């Protein structure tokens, strides 16, 4: 079974803090993704990576950066957290092309 794990299920941070969300997959997948999910807005793609050290902006990259130093690990960074970044963050991985994406359990981030 594919396993995608995220470093925390719940996280509370203060405004202005630097926040790291980590995601690890164990299936040697090429692609990894970060989404955020908000009520009424569905899932929105923040960034994705199709190879180590490669990244592409998704639909809402502002205020976020990412890092992929190893194939199995994809980090989402909030340089200076703001209250409007309070959300559920979901990581996913998948093979190239049309293969399905496998999602982690999510991290519920609250910025106060």
């Amino acid at each position, binding site marked *: 079974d594919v396993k*995608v794990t995220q470093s925390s299920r719940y996280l509370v941070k203060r405004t202005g803090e630097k926040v790291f969300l980590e995601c690890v997959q164990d299936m040697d997948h*090429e*692609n990894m993704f970060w*989404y955020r999910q908000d009520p*009424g*807005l*569905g*899932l*929105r*793609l923040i960034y*994705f990576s*199709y*190879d180590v050290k490669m990244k*592409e902006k998704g*639909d809402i990259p502002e205020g976020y950066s990412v890092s992929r130093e190893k194939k199995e690990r994809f980090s989402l960074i909030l340089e200076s957290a703001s209250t409007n970044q309070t959300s559920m963050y*979901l990581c*996913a991985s*998948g093979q*190239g*092309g*049309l*293969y*399905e*994406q*496998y*999602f*982690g*359990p*999510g991290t519920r981030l609250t910025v106060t």
Partner: protein
Amino acid sequence: LAKTTQPISMDSYEGQEVNITCSHNNIATNDYITWYQQFPSQGPRFIIQGYKTKVTNEVASLFIPADRKSSTLSLPRVSLSDTAVYYCLVGGPSGGYQKVTFGTGTKLQVIP
């Protein structure tokens, strides 16, 4: 990316067949149609994918008419455990990545 429209919510009694229709008028020639299921507090899970006509697996069937401007996910004899949000996605290969957009989904409530 082709925009998708699906009902916000649906109710169904246990044991009934449920059909959720998604419209995607601007679907491109190389786009596929993919459906995901999401339970509360979990990441989405792949259900089924198709390009045209009919696809069936152990979980659901996907019906796609010849013009491909819509698709219907069919869940046979639903149970309470099928209560979830169902997302219709349309997208095609973009380099090594399937570029898709998650909408807001259809919240299915199965009633005993």
